């Protein structure tokens, strides 16, 4: 028996290599897309366009990170797009009411947390499936937002607030800095804290986790709260970018966030996922949309391409996992 343990270190290195390899494959895909587009259209590589691309991808990227936490527990958060739209309204209303920007932002984030806690409550206490409770919030939040605004857009009367999203720091758009601001702590949280481990354990086998002393309910609350928080944060960024509060904004972003996460190697069955994967996934999607625009590809095609890409990447990911065993 002991002889077998001696011959050990081969297999895990392989498994790790596979993971790294998958990350690299995504990165390579992104780079290849960039190179091809730079050659195909001169406007792609322009600093203006690159900055634009980073801005486009950033918000979905942040949503995808929050979404990934939820998916790792074996759940799903369909509400994030609606939370983004609702948050633009909350932010706009408060800024226009004369609140200081920081207070308006902080309050919006608290609203996002509140929505996440509500999801946790619905799942843990009411026993509703995540799909249902977040679907319910998706439609109700849009409705509440429309009631609050009477269906109108609210123009945000703060120039300073709006310049933030257009500005850049060190040549990099501020919005992309926000991805780093979210991504680095998210990575540390997921890979290097016990709460990250608990997310995985709940997604893998909630019963085993419970019997091991993991507070499963609290872990579920945590996942949805983080997702709600990320969504509210994106809402603030979007409000800054478009300068209005409008509850119908960010239509379908929840699906883009889920797609980014899945392209980034997250398993919808839970217990498999990372932070860098969804980030890469989000920027791959953004690049495809951006490139298609520049190449004057019919925007209907962009949707089709995205769909095909999801199938192809997840299929190859499945092959990789089988091979990795």
């Amino acid at each position, binding site marked *: *028996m002991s002889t077998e343990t001696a011959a050990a*270190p081969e297999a895990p290195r392989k498994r790790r290599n596979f993971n790294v390899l998958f990350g690299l494959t995504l990165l390579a895909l992104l780079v290849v897309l960039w190179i091809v587009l730079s050659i195909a259209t001169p406007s792609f590589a322009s600093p203006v366009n690159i900055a634009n691309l980073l801005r486009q991808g950033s918000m979905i990227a942040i949503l995808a990170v929050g979404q990934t936490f939820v998916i790792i527990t074996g759940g799903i958060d369909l509400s994030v797009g609606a939370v983004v739209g609702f948050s633009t309204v909350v932010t706009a209303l408060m800024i226009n009411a004369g609140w200081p920007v920081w207070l308006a932002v902080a309050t919006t984030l608290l609203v996002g947390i509140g929505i996440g806690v509500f999801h946790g409550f619905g799942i843990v206490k009411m026993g509703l499936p995540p799909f249902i409770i977040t679907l319910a919030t998706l439609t109700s939040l849009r409705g509440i937002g429309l009631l609050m605004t009477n269906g109108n857009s609210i123009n945000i009367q703060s120039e300073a607030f709006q310049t933030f999203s257009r500005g850049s720091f060190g040549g990099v758009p501020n919005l992309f800095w926000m991805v780093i601001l979210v991504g680095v702590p998210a990575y540390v949280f997921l890979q290097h804290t016990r709460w990250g481990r608990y997310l995985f354990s709940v997604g893998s086998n909630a019963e085993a986790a419970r019997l091991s002393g993991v507070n499963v309910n609290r872990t579920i609350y945590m996942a949805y709260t983080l997702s709600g928080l990320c969504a509210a944060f994106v809402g603030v960024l979007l409000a800054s970018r478009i300068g209005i509060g409008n509850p119908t904004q960010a239509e379908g972003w929840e699906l883009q966030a889920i797609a980014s996460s899945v392209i980034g190697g997250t398993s919808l069955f839970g*217990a498999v996922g990372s932070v860098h994967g969804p980030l890469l996934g989000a920027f791959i999607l953004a690049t495809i949309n951006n490139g298609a625009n520049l190449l004057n590809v019919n925007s209907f095609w962009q949707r089709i391409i995205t769909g095909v890409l999801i199938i192809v990447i997840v299929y190859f990911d499945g092959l990789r996992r089988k091979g990795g065993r």
Partner: protein
Amino acid sequence: MSQAALRTDDALARGAPAPILELKGLEKRYPGTHALKPVDLAFLPGEIHAVVGENGAGKSTLIKLLTGAIVRTGGDMIWEGRSVPLSTPLEAQALGINAVHQEVVLCRHLSVAANIFLGDEETRYGLLRQRAMVRDAQKILDDLGFHLPAGVMLGDLTIGQQQLVAAARATVRGTKFLIFDEPTAYLTRREAEQLFALIRRLKAQGVTIIYISHRMEEVFELADRVSVLRDGTYVGTRAIGETDEPELVRMMINRSLEQIYHKEHFAFGAPIVEARNLSGKGFEDVSITVREGEIVGLYGLVGAGRSEFVTTLYGRHAKSAGSIHWQGREVDIRSEHDAIKLGMALAPESRRDQGLCLNLPVGFNINLPVYKRISANGLISNGEEKRQAEQQIGGLRIKTPTRHALASSLSGGNQQKIVIGKWLNHGAKLFIFDEPTVGVDVGTKAEIYRLFGELLRNGAGIILISSYLPEVYELADTLHVFRRGRLVASHGFRAATDETVLTEAIGKA
């Protein structure tokens, strides 16, 4: 069929019935492993042929080859004198080969009848003939002597009853050659008796039965011949009348029986936990004390209230009356979390459903209860995580390439070791083992029992729940017998005969 005809392979040549299936140098290689080394073996029509061996000995591989679940990489299979590829389950079924698996693989949300006819439904004009199927299924079940209703949802039956349904389903298909893989692992004694009756009847009808079990007494009760596998190698075949348990165990592991139930006695220390007149869902008025250095065995039939008692102790369910004292102090245990904080550890009955995060790494599972301890300011210490995991992997001799391998890739016995390892790591004071050796081979069993000794030496106490009488009988310092939710008798180490204990558990004089 006469004994002589079954005696040896030489007898085959002397005009015994022609084998129904012959394996000639059958083997299976995977990249990197030789799962089954060339086997030459012949199965006779109408015999019950037991196959025994430790986990990882190659039994599962053999079953999968026979049922067409995997394709052989070498050798030949001769079915009724004709070489067959046996490369798909459909082909196996067409020949009349079928298997009943250890874990029920049926649809819980369909009726018993629908399950029995799944994939082979009766239809008229393309529509299901639901009532006819229920009627026919009921007839099949009645004919088999199972007292089960065909119309109910499968999920409403106990695991044991579901197993019987699976057996019924297989008999409809496996008309010539039927494989039972550890069929009694989750059965009550009565259900097991029903199953044995079925197996004997099938044999009388000329069906060849392959019977795989870890329980030696079943092998001797049922089988005509027994074949032994060890480490993917075919060791040999014996007629059941010409061998005995010690010989089979030697063939399987090179270790004697006495070494398996290696019981060490320690002086008892202070009481760790005391349940005083505890009542809860499924049990009533139970008083039990566990002291340092003591194994307390809980024996009873499935559903007698043993598991319910310990899950209540562990905070899973609320108690309705009585009190729990932990190291002399009355405690209120409201959740598993409370129990774990006190120093309790539960290795649950079902490893797959409750014990492990299968699609996560071994090291992750081992450290799951202690992540709090090995992190500072929320950050996990990588070095500590590695050290703890490797200490348990080494100490328990868990067969895994490294701590990064997924728990699902390990054998059942090694998975059980992970469950134990994670609690050793946690440093618990009271260990509750619920059926720790179900589906575990003799060698691993011996190791798990050896571990018990080590736990006791370190001053821990153990509650051992088992439906397998020899296990509690040979190991428990104090043996409590449960029947219908009540504690009906208590004995010291080997103080009562095993017949007495059994009678107390069943409740007949």
